[in-house]
């Protein structure tokens, strides 16, 4: 779930290219945030927690006079220095009367303010004490959304009838039902139900219908209580070393994303079946102290075995996929209980915090035999304690967290962001994750998917000399002191990234990107020798996007990848695509966007990722590989003021292939076609 830059300049890749329409701004932010991380994702991601949150704020903007540090962080627009300056300005000069007062706050310029305008307001806050059930029903924004998706070509897993073989027990249909109620950002109810492709629905294998059901009730600003959530919730504490649910933006196009700005507590709305807590959590304040208490009781997936009376947990799958008999056999077999407390203290521009978390399982977790698992956790109870801090001094922001898992090791991060000049910002981020540091819901900034067995230094700068030019460069040097997956020895690597952008304000941009990454991995040429070799990736990208008029926008990209693995030689991959967007300013009944892409790669190792627009709240980051074409068409049709309909048709053609994908997902023929339909009713 994790992936593995005067101050406004830091925001370079939340590009300052956007049309006057909020929707496309959200998509632009989303793409800037997500593009980089998706390449390192180890499972399919649900980005809706970001897109849904930003779109909700468009409807119910955040009150700048009441917004907390955490809420401002969740806008994904402001860096920690800007937030600190904004809060300090509000504290010393009083409430804002207009958002344009931000021009007088250090680090804010017209571009950032223009972007912020979509998500914040300075209106009087709603007094919670006036709330009644009648008002809730009449004034609350309610939304019901149903999505259907299906790959039209049947995969091998659906065709197998032999009950002794692994096969998909359900249909290829995907269903997603969401209900949201939001009363002026003070009371929220959310319900999410999903059925993935291949998962059974209302059959003997899954008699309860949807495979994943998640819901929550959230109340804000109840006297001393800042927030109370009952049901499913997400916690984001400190720098994520002890607890971070939801998307974690690590290294990437958003330069300051390694300085995490967690919301602490929020209701869970995503469809990821693992990265959340289930129970009750409450956040309240006493003067300069802030407390978050939480308890979670949920059943998780586990591959278990019984030895005498001992329940042994051999693995804990986190994919959330329950399609085959073996996946279903592991479904919700382990009871996980988690309790904890976070205490925060804020004084002037210093924030410090401490968190204790205790996790119990109803069986003993057994580490696997392979040598790379030698330092893994074993047992049925895991306790961890962490301390975190952040401090702003003039144009310097420092932050960090140190966490210790009892019986294990330490995880430490420290970093700084310095605005040396209005046009130049630098950042440094250090990390050390011991090979015996364990925490279930930890997510840090790093190369691997675990906060474990890694150390590194990530540094770079952002140069924004004018409204038109952005230049970002970063380097990360890292090592893995112990063995890891596909590396039977200590290994190391580096990641260099630079991107130059020329921007036509509010019109378009052209960008050039180069990324060079080196990692070490086992050689497949001599597996018996456990030889570790270097893998080099050189990635070049050129992109041009332009808003031609109030209706039409285009985006063109070309990308080329050189891949070299010692002893095994060089491979290459390339891709070009053209996107067209039709978004009339005064909303007419129809909007659409489409893509035509051509790609050619030597192998899976030279696969290329690209963001794809999708139906509302959905987004995709498929990889393109082998030789072929991919195209999609998204259409939005406004049936009435309250009713909207989306459809998506996408296809991939690999002319030289006889089948697509492998294993149970293998499709005979050289085509794969996907259909998605979505209906949203605003009550």
């Amino acid at each position, binding site marked *: 779930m994790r992936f593995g830059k005067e101050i406004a300049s830091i925001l370079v890749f939340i590009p300052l290219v956007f049309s006057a329409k909020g929707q496309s701004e959200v998509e632009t932010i989303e793409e800037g945030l997500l593009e980089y991380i998706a390449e390192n994702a180890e499972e399919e991601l649900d980005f809706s927690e970001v897109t849904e949150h930003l779109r909700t704020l468009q409807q119910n903007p955040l009150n700048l006079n009441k917004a907390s540090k955490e809420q401002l962080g969740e806008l994904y627009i402001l860096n920690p220095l800007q937030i600190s300056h904004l809060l300090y300005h509000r504290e010393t000069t009083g409430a804002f009367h207009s958002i344009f007062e931000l021009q007088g706050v250090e680090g804010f310029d017209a571009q950032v303010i223009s972007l912020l305008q979509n998500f914040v307001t300075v209106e009087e806050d709603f007094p919670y004490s006036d709330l009644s059930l009648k008002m809730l029903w009449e004034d609350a924004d309610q939304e019901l959304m149903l999505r259907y998706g299906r790959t039209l070509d049947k995969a091998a897993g659906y065709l197998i009838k032999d009950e002794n073989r692994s096969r998909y027990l359900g249909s290829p249909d995907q269903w997603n039902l969401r209900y949201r109620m939001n009363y002026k950002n003070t009371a929220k109810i959310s319900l999410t139900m999903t059925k993935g492709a291949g998962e059974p629905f209302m059959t003997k294998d899954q008699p309860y219908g949807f495979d994943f059901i998640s819901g929550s009730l959230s109340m804000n600003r109840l006297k001393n209580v800042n927030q109370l959530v009952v049901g499913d919730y997400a916690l984001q504490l400190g720098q994520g070393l002890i607890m971070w649910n939801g998307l974690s933006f690590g290294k990437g196009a958003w330069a300051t994303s390694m300085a995490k700005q967690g919301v602490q507590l929020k209701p869970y709305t995503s469809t990821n079946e693992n990265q959340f807590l289930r129970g009750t959590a409450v956040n309240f304040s006493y003067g300069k102290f802030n407390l978050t208490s939480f308890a979670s009781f949920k059943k998780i997936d586990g591959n278990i075995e019984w030895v005498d009376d001992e329940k042994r947990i051999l693995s804990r799958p986190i994919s959330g996929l329950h399609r085959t008999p073996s996946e279903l056999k592991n479904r919700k077999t382990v009871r996980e209980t988690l309790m904890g407390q976070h205490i925060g203290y804020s004084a002037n521009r210093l924030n410090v915090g401490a968190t204790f978390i205790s996790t119990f399982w109803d069986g003993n977790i057994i580490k696997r035999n392979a040598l790379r698992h030698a330092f893994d956790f074993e047992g049925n109870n895991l306790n961890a304690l962490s301390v975190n801090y952040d401090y702003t001094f003039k144009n310097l922001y420092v932050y960090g967290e140190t966490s210790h898992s009892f019986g294990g090791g330490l995880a430490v991060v420290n970093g700084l962001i310095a605005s040396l*000049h209005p*046009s*130049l910002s*630098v950042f440094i981020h250090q990390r050390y994750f011991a090979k015996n540091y364990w925490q279930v819901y930890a997510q840090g900034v790093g190369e691997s998917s675990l906060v474990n067995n890694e150390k590194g230094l990530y540094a770079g700068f952002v140069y924004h000399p004018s409204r038109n030019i952005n230049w970002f460069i970063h*380097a990360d040097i890292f090592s893995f002191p112990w063995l890891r997956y596909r590396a039977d020895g200590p290994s190391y690597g580096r990641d260099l990234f630079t991107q130059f952008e020329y921007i036509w304000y509010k019109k378009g941009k052209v960008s050039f990107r180069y990324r060079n990454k080196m990692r070490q991995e086992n050689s497949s040429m001599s597996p018996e020798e456990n030889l570790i070799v270097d893998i080099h990736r050189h990635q070049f990208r050129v992109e041009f996007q332009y808003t031609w008029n109030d209706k039409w926008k285009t985006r063109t990209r070309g990308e080329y990848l050189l891949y070299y693995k010692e002893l095994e030689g060089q491979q290459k991959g390339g891709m070009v695509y053209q996107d067209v967007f039709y978004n009339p300013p005064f909303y007419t009944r129809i909007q659409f966007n489409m893509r035509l892409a051509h790609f050619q790669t030597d192998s899976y190792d030279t696969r290329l990722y690209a963001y794809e627009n999708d139906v509302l709240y959905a987004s995709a980051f498929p990889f393109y590989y082998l030789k072929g074409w991919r195209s999609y068409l998204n259409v939005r049709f406004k049936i009435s003021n309250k009713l909207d309909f989306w459809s998506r048709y996408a296809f991939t053609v690999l002319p030289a292939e006889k089948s697509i994908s492998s294993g149970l997902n293998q499709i005979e023929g050289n085509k794969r076609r996907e259909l998605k339909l979505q209906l949203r009713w605003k009550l």
Partner: protein
Amino acid sequence: MRALLLLFLPLGVYCQSFNPAPYLGMGNTGTAQKGIYSLEKNPAGIASLSSFTAASAYQNHYLGTGIQTVALFIGAPLYSNSLIGVKALSYGIPNTTKLNSFGIAYAKKIGSSFSSSISVNHHRYYIKDHTNEKAFSADLGFQWVVIKELTFGVFYRNITGSQFDIYAEQSIPNELLLGLHYKVSGSVAFSCDYAKDFNSAPSSVRIGISYSASEKIYVNGGMSTQPQQYYAGIGLVVLPFRIDFASSFHPYLGTSPQLALLYAVR
């Protein structure tokens, strides 16, 4: 023990890494920078000196290995627009091995935007009771001030292609350096170098930033490829002196701290 180290640390790889502390801290750049320390990275940069200046530096390479560099730089205006500089470098493990370089550079301003230099160096490679090799080399350097804030530099080290006798496992760098130095503001400067050693090493890109919190304190940082490592440094100005402390941080070989002291006649 020190003799054993020689087996693992081919000096040729490391002797090229010396760069005076103010430039080292800025990501091992310096080709487009000015001042007495330019004697090492591009002597055309000493053309900016307005008075007699002397500097010395001491660096411990990869702490604990015993490898060190001692350096001395002297620069003085001769007559209108012409300057002369002298450098002396001694690199190695004391009482065991030395790679000594002694160079004389002549630099000249050409108009208000250009400066150039030519330098001649004598190198001596010495391993106790084993090797005593000597060679001469010559270097050529240019700097172009495009605008007040932006300077380009080109330096060709060892245009003569000189080398020690083939018997010595040591090479004199045969290196092309291209650099730019940009003053973002009065307090922030940015430097970028590209280096290509034609002897063997892959080309390297180096980037550095210098920030002056006040006229008396400078903080530098940078990074480079080949070797991939970070750099940091701090400079204190106590007129007529400037003291610099900087280090490279190699992820596996460790830190190489350096102290440099500059004196300029006011």
